[in-house]
């Protein structure tokens, strides 16, 4: 199958939550090197509160992204609340009223998230922020679409691009955000936002890949 059903959002959203929860301490450590050390704590708080609200309920991808985004926006504050809140709300908007999320649809969602982000931050690729993860991730999806690759393979390309983009922040000097005060002294360290963005995108992609894979296996009851 080359799409995930919008209505099957619970697994995708919870995989994002789990990925952040598992990396809480790691994100805090990274942020402590050139930031103020609270990135893991804040992200974990926002994502966990969302998971608690969701409880045992089902959710669509679009509703889930909306609820998670609103949560981050209204409960986290700092810079990451509005940044991730904006990205997720824009992605959600693109998926509203859509039954199937396929490659072109997912590109639309991520592109809209990126545009929303650009409206509120001045950072662009090369400034040592999460843009350095998000931008190449989106570019990889588009390249895969152009090359006629399947959604699953495109997501694999996106994961690789996000990882490479995240790693690229190590050799950059920060221009925006709190670590920008360090300028040249921030070289040699990963940007915490680029890392969390990579974690979220990879969790999302893997969960969608798994859903598509599971759907391809014939139901055993039928055999």
């Amino acid at each position, binding site marked *: 199958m080359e799409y995930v059903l919008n209505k099957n959002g619970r697994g995708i959203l919870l995989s994002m939550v789990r990925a952040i929860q598992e990396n809480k301490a790691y994100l805090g450590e990274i942020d402590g090197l050139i930031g103020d050390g*609270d990135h893991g704590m804040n992200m974990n708080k926002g994502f966990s509160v969302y998971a608690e609200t969701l409880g045992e309920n089902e959710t669509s991808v679009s509703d889930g992204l909306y609820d998670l985004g609103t949560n981050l*926006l209204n409960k986290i*504050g700092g810079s990451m609340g*509005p940044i991730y809140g904006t990205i997720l709300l824009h992605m959600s908007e693109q998926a509203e009223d859509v039954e199937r999320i396929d490659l072109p649809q997912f590109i639309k969602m991520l592109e809209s998230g990126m545009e929303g982000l650009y409206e509120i931050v001045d950072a662009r690729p090369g400034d040592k922020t999460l843009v350095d993860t998000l931008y190449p991730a989106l570019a990889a999806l588009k390249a895969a679409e152009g090359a006629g690759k399947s959604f699953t393979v495109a997501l694999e390309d996106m994961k690789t691009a996000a990882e490479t983009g995240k790693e690229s922040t190590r050799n950059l000097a920060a221009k*925006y955000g709190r670590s920008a005060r360090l300028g040249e002294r921030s070289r040699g360290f990963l940007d915490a936002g680029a890392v969390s963005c990579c974690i979220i995108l990879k969790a999302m992609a893997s969960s969608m890949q798994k859903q598509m894979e599971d759907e391809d296996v014939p139901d055993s009851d039928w055999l």
Partner: protein
Amino acid sequence: MQRILNNPDHIVDEMLEGFAKCHPDIVKRVFPSEDNARGVVAAREGCVPGTVGVVTGGGSGHKPAFIGYVGKNMCDAAAVGEICSSPTALAFLDAFRAANGGQGVACLYGNYSGDNMNVKMAVKMAKKEGIAVKTVIANDDVASAPKDQREKRRGVAGEILMWKCGGAKAALGGTLDEVIAAAQKAVDLTRSVGIGLTPCTLPAVGHPNFEIKDGTMEVGIGHHGEPGIEVCPLETAGQMAKRMVDIVVPDYPFRAGDETVVLVSGLGATPLMELYVLFNEIEKLLKERNIRIYKSYVGNLFTSLDMMGATLTIMKVDEEMKPLIDLPVNCAGWKQF
């Protein structure tokens, strides 16, 4: 770390509870929206109907900023964030709602990326509700960017004088544009610099997240430990004062014959006694330059948790600004009669 704490994760909310109980004659907590359980701190009487509302906000850990400047003739409401972290857009919106007296709201805050984003979103949300909000962003910290990039500079203790002048203009019946103009003028006339002697510790983290080595000091340090322009061996009060004056005075520049407001704030853990020693030296240096002090303030007025050190803020005043500086205020963190 030896602190007066329960659960460090609840420090902001417990502090707010204590603050409101201690100053019921000055402030009240209000809760305009369910999703912002922390609410906002508002002046006890609220915004006087028919006047412009004055709002500020920022991360916690800078006491008495920001809530300590809510009260009569200064700020009408303040949004409260986690320690060193901007309040949410919703918290700013709630502060706008609490301060709105029908004549619009002036949001006067400091130049930090998180605050900029959240305020920008809150202003949009407020517009949908029919509340007109205009902003002034304080950028008085000389050490945080060169003069030709003033828009990148951080806001520090100079924010207090922005609130003082903007709040006074609103109390005197100024329109939204007049309040904004007064606050902007106050920012434009103001320059600051800080010197840090020790780092600060986020209670939930438990250890300092940057270092200032024993026997050294960091000139130009920011309110969250943002690196300064120079780390050098610890100096005498006289030498520190000279460094600060030499950075602040030429930047504006303040000239012989100028009348100024001088504000020396501790960063949280420096005893008041030492701040007066520093002020004494600063006064001498300004006198040598024939820069006159119209009014002066010394205290822990805008702090950085438990950092040791101080900031110097100088603002030039003219006949338009003097009455705004002189207007009495009654806030928890600032009283003037």
